[in-house]
């Protein structure tokens, strides 16, 4: 027994060492944000001499940080909200009903998981342009909803198949309409799937690059990723502004991750193991 504990302690030390090595790139970026130009030229892993927030203050202003943050947050939250409502509504009959049409529709929706977005990109750009939806919030929400629907329908249908019909049937007997029964008896019990969808789709929408590059490039519509991309393009050699820009763009997600870490990891694991 004692020998086993010894081995475990050794394993633990090795794993901690590996983890430290693993997150060195993150330490490196954060430490660079506080360094003076002279310190930046020195040994890259040294600690900064003092916590100098001037770089952050400059970048905050130049990146219009509060504005792009609000923009990204608004687009992400609205898209995920629409996705959860429409995706779970569609998944409900697909999970409960059998029959050719329902099977076909299930395959129709989930086939989209394998379609690379780039295949839709060119006609979509043209189409969205004709409808004057480029650089609009509702255009962005529609696009994010459409491309995330396959995974959303897949996850909700998979989860709904494991739930029992008793509650909703009781609600029907009580005279509830199908919509009302769905809302009071089904939607509350699929919370785990809702959490998984929320986590996966928020992450991908928040971090999306190609879609906002094509559809939200206007200065008044930029998301964090596009503002950072443009910013890097404009200040390509000025690393004292770039590093804080990167850290600022990551902080909101990192905060959410720190608080919801358990649920995020669980959500991802549940989502994939169910599939």
């Amino acid at each position, binding site marked *: 027994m004692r020998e086993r504990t010894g081995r475990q302690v050794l394993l633990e030390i090795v794993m901690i060492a590996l983890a430290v090595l693993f997150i060195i790139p993150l330490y490196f970026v954060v430490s660079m944000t506080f360094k003076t130009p002279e310190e930046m030229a020195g040994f890259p892993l040294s600690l900064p001499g003092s916590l100098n927030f001037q770089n952050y203050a400059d970048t905050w202003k130049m990146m219009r940080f509060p504005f792009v943050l609000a923009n990204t947050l608004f687009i992400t939250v609205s898209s995920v909200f629409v996705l959860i409502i429409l995706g779970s509504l569609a998944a409900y009959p697909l999970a409960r009903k059998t029959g050719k049409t329902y099977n076909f529709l299930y395959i129709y929706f989930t086939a989209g998981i394998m379609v690379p977005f780039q295949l839709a990109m060119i*006609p979509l750009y043209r189409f969205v342009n004709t409808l004057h939806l480029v650089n609009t919030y509702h255009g962005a929400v529609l696009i994010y909803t459409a*491309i995330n629907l396959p995974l959303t329908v897949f996850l909700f249908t998979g989860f709904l198949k494991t739930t029992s019909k008793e509650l909703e049937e009781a609600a029907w007997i009580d005279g509830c309409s199908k919509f009302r029964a769905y809302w009071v008896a089904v939607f509350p019990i699929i919370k785990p799937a809702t959490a998984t969808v929320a986590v996966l789709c928020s992450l991908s929408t928040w971090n999306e690059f190609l879609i906002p590059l094509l559809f939200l490039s206007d200065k008044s519509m930029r998301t964090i990723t596009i503002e950072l991309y443009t910013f890097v393009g404009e200040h390509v050699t000025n690393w004292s502004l770039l590093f804080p820009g990167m850290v600022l763009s990551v902080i909101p997600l990192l905060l959410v991750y720190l608080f919801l870490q358990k649920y995020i*990891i669980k959500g991802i*694991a549940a989502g994939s193991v169910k599939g």
Partner: protein
Amino acid sequence: MQKWSLAKKEHLVWAAFIAPAFLIYTIIFLGPVITSFYYSMTNWNGLYKTMDFVGLRNFIELTSDEDFLNALRNTFWFTLFIVIFQNGLAIPLALALDSKIKTKSMLRAAFFVPAILSPLVVGYTWSYIFQPNGLLNVLLGKLGLTAWQQSWLGDPKYALYSLVVIVLWQYVGYSMVIFVANLQTIPADYYEAADIDGAGGWRKFTAITFPLMAPSLTINVVLASIGSLKAFDIIYVTTKGGPYHATETVTTLLYQKAFSESSFGYGTAIGVVMFFIILIISFLQIVVLRRREVGA
């Protein structure tokens, strides 16, 4: 008669549940995809209103297009390396972090962090680390390994491998989390029974753990394959397909053809080929790996 109309009415209600998602998905995503199949058979350049139907000419041209064949080769190696190493590294990591060590949840969180970052931030960070005078070369210099210093992303010999390293760093924790979730479903009695039979650690892994990890292996292999085949952001922000097309993949070539060279017809033909590649690979993997799951 009345029963029939009741059933019909019920179908109408269900149709109302499905309709909003169906319409958005069809109009915004699948419609454009189908239109792409048509464009891939034209010579449309995106500027003029006119285009000619050219049948399969774009596809025939692709078979002898050296740029496309090069992109196809790069995509193949990039995907293969990522699938092998991402799973090969994530499995031992998951085993170590599923054991009884005290800090395991903290450690899991640490290995998972890169997965929540945008490919943009990851790409910039590693571009700086891989620079000729960047972190990696400085560290190699300190260790006296000056002969190993390279222009990691700037040398065609190393660029694709460096890119693989970046992707592995970002997603190894993601695969690990999925493996851990699977490991937690393996009943402890199996191991107790093996202990009684006197099985050693390696024997337990090959006889119990690995076969029972089949479901998560299927998912991780399929996710890593589709992810690498579709990868675009990380390549676009680090190398843009260079140097000398050394990291040009099907996605970056497609973007280049469509948006920089305005060959929309030709670009969509590349997209169509890519779609079939993803379809065939995911299908084969699911069939082969699912069979293993049932066998296990």
